[in-house]
């Protein structure tokens, strides 16, 4: 009999077990995080779009 909790039955094994316990992970303050954004260059976006669709992708917004 599986020891996995019933509610995780559809998830891949270990997916949830890798998460840290709440006590180690719940104290981060958004205001204290170094907000370092990285811009994804347009050429990279275009490359990804072409790679995944062969150029036949329908964009919601150009």
């Amino acid at each position: 009999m599986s020891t996995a909790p019933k509610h995780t039955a559809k998830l891949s094994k270990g997916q949830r077990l890798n998460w840290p316990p709440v006590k180690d992970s719940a104290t981060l303050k958004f205001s204290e995080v170094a907000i370092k954004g990285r811009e994804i260059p347009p050429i990279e976006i275009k490359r990804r779009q072409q790679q995944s669709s062969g150029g036949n992708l329908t964009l919601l917004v150009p």
Partner: protein
Amino acid sequence: MTFDFQGYELKFVQKCRCKDDSPHLYTYIYKFFSPVTCYYYVVRAEYHEENVFAIKFYCKKDKRSDYKYSKIINKGDLGNIIMSCAKVIPLLLRDHPKASFCFAASRSVDLKNNTVEDYRHTQRFKLYCYMIPMKFGAVTFEHHAYDEVSCYLLRNRHAPSSRKQMETMFRNVYVNLSEVNL
């Protein structure tokens, strides 16, 4: 893998003013139904100063839960659900052509095991980083990913506000954005 899901029809529910004197000014609320999961989903487009919408969604059955943005429904139909939420952006651009959009990819929680995903690279963030460039080009928006806090910003190229101004506004509004207390 292509991301060619059609999504479902969005139904406008209402516009709610936010009267807490914060930079969050009002919210457009939409809903849609997934015949696969047999659940309704609620999409909230929260309009903030600096002309930025924060897009949020949750399963309607969890509307009273503190963790409605973090729960995993686990009934499939993810592509259509995400696409339905994404469809709110072209709708909003009609009335707000200079608007920018941001997404905070919530940390998933497992209430039974008392565990929670880390802040960085949540599974939702990975999905957004894959899906958003597939559906939104670089002509209208600059794409910015924030790995540390699993957020994604689509900054309108015609936006009068700088990226820095948007970041500062969100930092002040969502002081404990990723904090989870189970």
